[in-house]
């Protein structure tokens, strides 16, 4: 049974391994550094790979990567491994102001680290060549690879034709007045799709509130700090016990304010981020669902085309047309394509079934950890606050007497 772990090491206990050491592949994303100036400035990360796998050069390799390199890896895997839920990437930052804020950079680094590690611990994905390139290639090779993917070059010629055909068939359907429903409608799959779509809504709401909760912690910290400052000033008006009591209250308020700020950060990194990650994961599933729909549609359309071709073929046979030979050739090609398409579709279905089970398990453990961190953080904060306030009471008693 594969245990998918979220942490650094993506170790896999392979029963087939006869070598003395179990094969491992461990990656970490660290050391964000700002590169360049002005509009073109960006953040680079160190990606450190430790492995004993033969396909990799040496035990340890360090490369420098930027966000768009991770995007490249994600997109390549998405293309190649249809049916597998590719681990999600953190969002592109749209707000210029935050792009280089320490918090944003740290959140992104953490998310990228999780991303790569999930790939490295996935039994299929870890074997990908693209992963190897990503982890090993020098910066120039990486740049070149990435450049090829951008813009219109991203779409291969075959894809372009397919898109064209889709538009064509769409148009003809509309013209003919029929929108053929080319969707799978097995009840189980329907259930799963509905589940995914509704899940996204629920999760998004929870995440929204979690994010607000982080903000509230910060706001409470700030207002407590201001309150403390004001109380301290009030304390300077009296130089008796009352004045001292005010000063002590003010000082304590400021201390507690710092605890609140700390907890806000902890909450953001260890609770809100995992929730957001969950949302992204669901969105990744939706992308796979779309892929499956595309594959299904293709399968259906091809089946139709083959049927029509059969009709044509029989017609030619009967009329002994000279188009028969070519038609037969085309027909064979179509049949082969049809089989390939079906095979691909079936694989997607099979993979998705495995993936969904894996996904549920992973999410239970991911969220379990997040809940634990949330509860731990809140308990720590509350205890800290209680202790801090309580420590004032004996002094206060002294002042009252």
């Amino acid at each position: 049974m594969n245990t998918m772990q979220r942490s650094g090491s993506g170790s896999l206990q392979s029963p087939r391994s006869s070598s003395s050491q179990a094969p491992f592949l461990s990656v970490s994303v660290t050391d964000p550094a700002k590169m360049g100036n002005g509009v073109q400035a960006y953040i680079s990360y160190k990606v450190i790979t430790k492995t004993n796998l033969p396909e990799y050069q040496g035990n340890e390799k360090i490369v420098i990567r930027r966000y768009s390199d991770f995007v490249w890896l994600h997109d390549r895997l998405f293309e190649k491994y249809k049916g597998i839920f590719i681990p999600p990437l953190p969002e592109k930052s749209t707000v210029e102001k935050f792009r280089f804020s320490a918090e944003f950079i740290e959140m992104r680094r953490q998310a990228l680290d999780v991303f790569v590690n999930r790939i490295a611990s996935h039994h299929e994905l870890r074997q990908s060549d693209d992963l190897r390139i990503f982890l090993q290639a020098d910066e120039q090779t990486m740049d070149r690879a990435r450049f090829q993917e951008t813009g219109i070059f991203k779409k291969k010629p075959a894809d372009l034709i397919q898109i064209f055909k889709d538009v064509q068939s769409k148009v003809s359907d509309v013209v003919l007045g029929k929108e053929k429903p080319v969707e799978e409608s097995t009840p189980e799959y329907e259930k799963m799709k509905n589940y995914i779509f509704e899940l996204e809504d629920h999760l998004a709401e929870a995440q929204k509130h979690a994010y607000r909760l982080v903000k509230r912690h910060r706001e409470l910290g700030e207002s407590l700090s201001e309150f403390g400052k004001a109380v301290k000033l009030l304390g300077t008006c009296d130089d008796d016990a009352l004045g001292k009591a005010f000063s002590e209250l003010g000082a304590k308020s400021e201390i507690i304010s710092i605890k609140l700020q700390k907890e806000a950060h902890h909450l953001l990194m260890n609770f809100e981020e995992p929730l957001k990650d969950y949302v992204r994961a669901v969105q990744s599933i939706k992308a796979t669902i779309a892929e499956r729909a595309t594959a299904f549609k293709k399968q259906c359309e091809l089946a139709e085309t083959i049927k029509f071709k059969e009709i044509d073929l029989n017609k030619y046979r009967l009329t002994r047309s000279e188009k028969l030979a070519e038609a037969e050739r085309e027909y064979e090609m179509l049949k082969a394509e049809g089989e390939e398409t079906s095979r691909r579709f079936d694989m997607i279905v099979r993979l998705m079934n495995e993936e969904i089970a894996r996904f549920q398990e992973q999410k239970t453990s991911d969220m379990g950890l997040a809940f634990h961190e949330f509860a731990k953080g809140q308990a720590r904060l509350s205890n800290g606050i209680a202790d801090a306030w309580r420590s004032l009471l004996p002094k206060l008693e002294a002042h009252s007497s």
Partner: protein
Amino acid sequence: MMGYENQESHLYASKEEMESLVLDDDSPNGTAHPFSDPLSSSSSLPFAEIPTDQSQTPNSSFNSILEPPSYAEAIFRSFDADHSSPQLNGAHDHSIASPSSPPSSDDFLTITVSDPQKEQELSNSLVPGGTAYVTYLITTRTNLPEFDGTEFSVRRRFRDVVTLSDRLAESYRGFFIPLRPDKSVVESQVMQKQEFLEQRRAALEKYLRRLAAHPVIRRSEELRMFLEANGKLPLVRTTDVASRMLDGAVQLPKQIFGETAGGMVDANEVAQPAKGGRDLLRIFRELKQSVSNDWGGVKPPVVEEDKELVEKKQKLHDFEQQLSNVSQQAEALVKAQQDIGETMGQMGLAFVKLTKFETERAVYDSQRTRAADMKNVATASVKASRLYRELNAQTVKHLDKLHEYLGVMLAVNNAFSDRSSALLTVQTLLSELSSLNSRIEKLEAAASKIFGGDRSRIRKIEELKETHRVTEDAKSSAVKEYERIKENNKNELERFEKERHDDFLGMLRGFIVNQAGYAEKMANVWKTVAEETSGYAKHGS
């Protein structure tokens, strides 16, 4: 888990409460001024006790799930017990933030304001149908001897309160008299709205209770009449401006020509500050005096003593400024506490929905496990949200003391200006005396040069000497009044300092105990969840 069933039913019960929780937050109450709201809603109870009992019940049902009573619980109970014991004597309600003065043995004077009713002014006015006004039922319970009964009620309108306040200001110059509620000029439509009436009722009650808490004013005849006299309030109404102006115009010629035949300068009048309209000339004279004081030429013979008072006033002024600042920050703090509680609750609700969803649609066991974990977090969040709410209600109750003392500072300033105006009266009279003296001297010198006397001059001298005698009496009266007010100031200051000390230390203690207690409760809630999810932590976070 043990108690899982309890938690389950509790979850859905608290979900209903959470729904109503959310609704409450949408209602106007949630957005009203944080200081006025909780108090006004609770002052329908005779003692305006912030419902600590009410806050205890949900906690006790929590406690049946959580640990046994903690340190904070014990502190809570002892703290609230402190506050409830004087209740039996009922001399002072600490909970409604009235200045606590030492009750003399067992006497009490408890006032309640209730039942606003609309009534019609009988049309002797020009407006057809008459104007409407609102009366309130003032119920008093007391064992003070000067009252005729032990429990009685009267109906009073706001105008009566203004009258009471004005009469007290005249009779108790130099005292720190609690400020009456604002007149708040609003249209008659607004006047009849429930919210306005409730606000006003609460404000009136607070005011009367503060009067009742003042050791000297509670024994005043004015207050007694207000509380007890049936029918029309037998206090002299503050006359309206028009008639005052008229009076003043009538008085003016006599004052200007200085013909004070037969003791026109009433010694009693001197003991009052120059009121608008009636004493135009007096105001004019005193203004002249104050200007000459300020511009310094003549050093006034009665010197305001001193640096000690000036220092004291400055200190109080500084205190007032800082207090105002703290009061503002306290408001912001309360808002932030409210916000975090709300958001926590909303997040909890979102997780409740998620839990339900996952449970209903579960295909894999991992989903069921996750749903169970999520439910714990959801429940805890909702609990924490309710704790924040309670914490905030208590915080408002304690920090409202800040707000109240801002009002007290205004009363202090009034008392000091009573003193200043009394001093000004004395100074005015003194300079009049000195000018009369020099006039008499001059006339006497001129008259002595004429052999046999100058009949008209001699007559004039006699007149002036008479005026001088009267003015001298007035001056003595004014000096006595000034000394009296000084004495009142001094006593009140002492009382104020002591009360301020006690009140604020009490406020601090209440605030701190509250914060600590609720933090501890929250810590317990989260500790349970942390323990329940500790299995996930094995990868070392």
